[in-house]
């Protein structure tokens, strides 16, 4: 079905919903590369005006990728919560935007509606919202997950400690890990991107992480970010697996290019049942996503990159993940060109993920061929802190020497907690207090060379 809007006697016609969504999207290089963007500033606003009038029910009847050919579309439609949707079924996309910002949309109401929203509805409303709208609404959402600690409580901001090393050297990784722990980092997860996908290496790393977590009784969880087929092998080998990782995208074809399918994810999700449970909860999956992955895999099916990204969240929420991380600036300038585009995309991803019920974190990051720098990351870090982001990365000095990109540092996390009065996960905070690493106001204490952690690692 076609959508229309008339501006100064000129009628813009948008052939179908996916075209309308793409043309209504704030400009970014990836959509331009795919040939999907509005051709003029006016056309973009015309598309937004038309989109505002689209009924939410339309999204249940017109799929952006066909139900028959795409398993994520089937997942979205088949798991839609029609009962809760009844309360908002009369809304247009524009109504939804205005309602989300109203006082009627409370934390509890938004939690109840998570499965009444489809990713496309949320992607659509996101396109009509300014950055401050995305922040204001996301801040009202609270998505809490648990394994050995509690992540996502309002007033908390956690970090993934990311102690990568270019050759997976155990001592090198341990050195970065100690540095991070002594700066109060690592409550979301201690997660290593291994340089190799070799199961033997991954298993060695898992044992090392497990030993450290046990020896120092750290209320946190570990993860080695390896392909899920390797993860499955390690579960079968009874390796000490806490969180199981996988990169996912928002079309069946994208996931195919990642070597993953809903069937495989279901299989792993079932296998997790055989693992020892977390001490206070059992959220076990760790997913990473990012705008542009579908286009990069030549699997976007004519759908704009922000909508594709939101569709990936339908996959994630099926598995009650502990953490979902949009690695927003990693993909490069052909998808998100500069600081402005990265900041916008990160706020969109965090907003969409949260409304869809996910424990969203963001890897606030950029590569050296993008027109961005640490000032842009400071801006984004502060904005996401205000928006209530569940977790960010903690990388030594913000410089990942294995993946060759820049993210946020241990210091950055302390900054954002301090200026926004945020705390780490409560169980982890207790541990930091016991270890004499931080005080209860979030100040780092002076640590001498005889500290228990340094002496016994």
């Amino acid at each position, binding site marked *: 079905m076609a959508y229309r809007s008339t501006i100064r006697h000129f009628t813009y016609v948008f052939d179908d919903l996916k075209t309308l969504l793409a043309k209504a999207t704030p400009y970014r*290089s990836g959509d*331009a*590369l795919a040939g999907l963007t509005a051709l003029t500033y006016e056309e973009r606003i015309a598309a937004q005006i038309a989109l505002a009038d689209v009924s939410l029910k339309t999204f249940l009847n017109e799929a952006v990728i066909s139900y028959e050919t795409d398993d994520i579309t089937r997942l979205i439609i088949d798991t839609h919560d029609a009962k809760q949707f009844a309360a908002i079924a009369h809304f247009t996309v524009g109504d939804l935007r205005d309602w989300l910002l109203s006082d009627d949309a409370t934390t509890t109401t938004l939690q109840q509606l998570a499965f009444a929203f489809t990713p496309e509805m949320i992607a659509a409303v996101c396109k009509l919202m300014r950055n401050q709208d995305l922040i204001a609404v996301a801040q009202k959402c609270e998505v809490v997950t648990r394994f050995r600690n509690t992540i996502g409580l309002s007033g908390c901001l956690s970090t993934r400690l990311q*102690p*990568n*090393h*270019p050759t997976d*050297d155990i*001592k*090198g*990784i*341990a*050195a*970065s890990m*100690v*540095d991070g722990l*002594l700066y109060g980092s690592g409550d979301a997860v201690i997660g290593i991107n291994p340089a190799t996908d070799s199961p033997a290496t991954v298993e060695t790393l898992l044992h090392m992480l497990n030993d450290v977590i046990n020896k120092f009784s750290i209320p946190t969880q570990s993860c080695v970010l390896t392909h899920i087929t390797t993860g499955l092998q390690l579960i079968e080998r009874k390796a000490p697996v806490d969180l199981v990782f996988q990169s996912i995208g928002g079309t069946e074809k994208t996931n195919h290019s990642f070597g993953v399918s809903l069937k495989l994810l279901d299989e792993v999700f079932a296998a997790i049942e055989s693992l020892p449970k977390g001490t206070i909860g059992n959220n076990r999956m760790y997913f990473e996503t990012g705008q542009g992955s579908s286009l990069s895999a030549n699997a976007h099916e004519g759908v704009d990159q922000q909508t594709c990204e939101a569709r990936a969240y339908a996959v994630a929420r099926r598995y009650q993940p502990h953490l979902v991380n949009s690695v927003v600036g990693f993909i*490069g*300038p*052909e998808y998100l*060109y500069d600081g402005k585009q990265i900041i916008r995309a990160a706020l969109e991803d965090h907003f969409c993920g949260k409304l869809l019920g996910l424990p969203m974190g963001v890897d606030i990051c950029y*590569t*050296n*061929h993008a027109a961005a*720098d*640490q000032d842009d990351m400071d801006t984004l870090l502060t904005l996401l802190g205000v928006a209530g982001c569940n977790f960010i990365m903690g990388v*030594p*000095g*913000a*410089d990942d*020497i294995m993946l*060759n*990109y*820049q993210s946020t*540092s241990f*210091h950055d996390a*302390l*900054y954002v907690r*301090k200026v926004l009065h945020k705390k780490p996960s409560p169980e982890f905070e207790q541990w930091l207090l016991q270890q004499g690493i931080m005080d209860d106001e979030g100040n*780092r204490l*002076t*640590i*001498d*060379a005889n*500290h228990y952690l*340094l002496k016994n690692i």
Partner: protein
Amino acid sequence: MDIQKHKPVEDDAWHALKQFTAARIALGRTGHAVPLKELLKFKLAHAHARDAVYARLHVKELTQELQQFNLPVYSLHSKVKDRNEYLLHPDIGRQLNDASVQLLQSRSASFDIVVVLADGLSATAINHHAVPLLQQLIPLLQEAKFSIAITTAQQARVAVGDTIGSLMNAKLSLVLIGERPGLSAADSMGAYLTYNPTVGLTDESRNCISNIRPEGIDYAKAATKIHYLISSSFRLQYSGVTLKDDEQDFLAE
């Protein structure tokens, strides 16, 4: 507090751990911030990386230096107009401009191997490391009686080697290309080899050796690896993910 005497920067007590990693650990702090000295080190590394992205291939100097090998040398350019277009449109950086296509079509010679020196995301890497690597590699390849041509390629992506290789009827293309600069190194060179280069191939058809630079994989080691992969590739008549880099076994033989 006596502001004049107070030193705001507190060092970290675990400097010794720096011996295990090049990561930016034990930076110290002032309040919760990174001390200025470390901040400026970081910014300098980022400046080097940014400058490398916008650096130009020194075609004239490279062409002169390449004369030492007594091989045919061609200067080529992708269809990309400027660096901005290069960054936004990877597809255009994989195609040769008309003048380059005509230049190659006007030569009827065919070669076993065409070596392409492509700027990629760090012309600095090629300007510094391409010729010293070839000084180690070319003699090994000539000893094996391969016929070789060399080209430079400006504003080029890896897959430009497919276009060049097929236009030159080469059996194998070896693309030396500047890798995306990191903060630890803005001059890392990658080597991608593709057997039977044809337009439209993707990365699984190639073998790659990354991080070629004196502080990473040095020239001699890189040359040995590349020579090994090229020899295997010619023997098996394919390249890519199924061609393993089991050079250790090879060296042990």
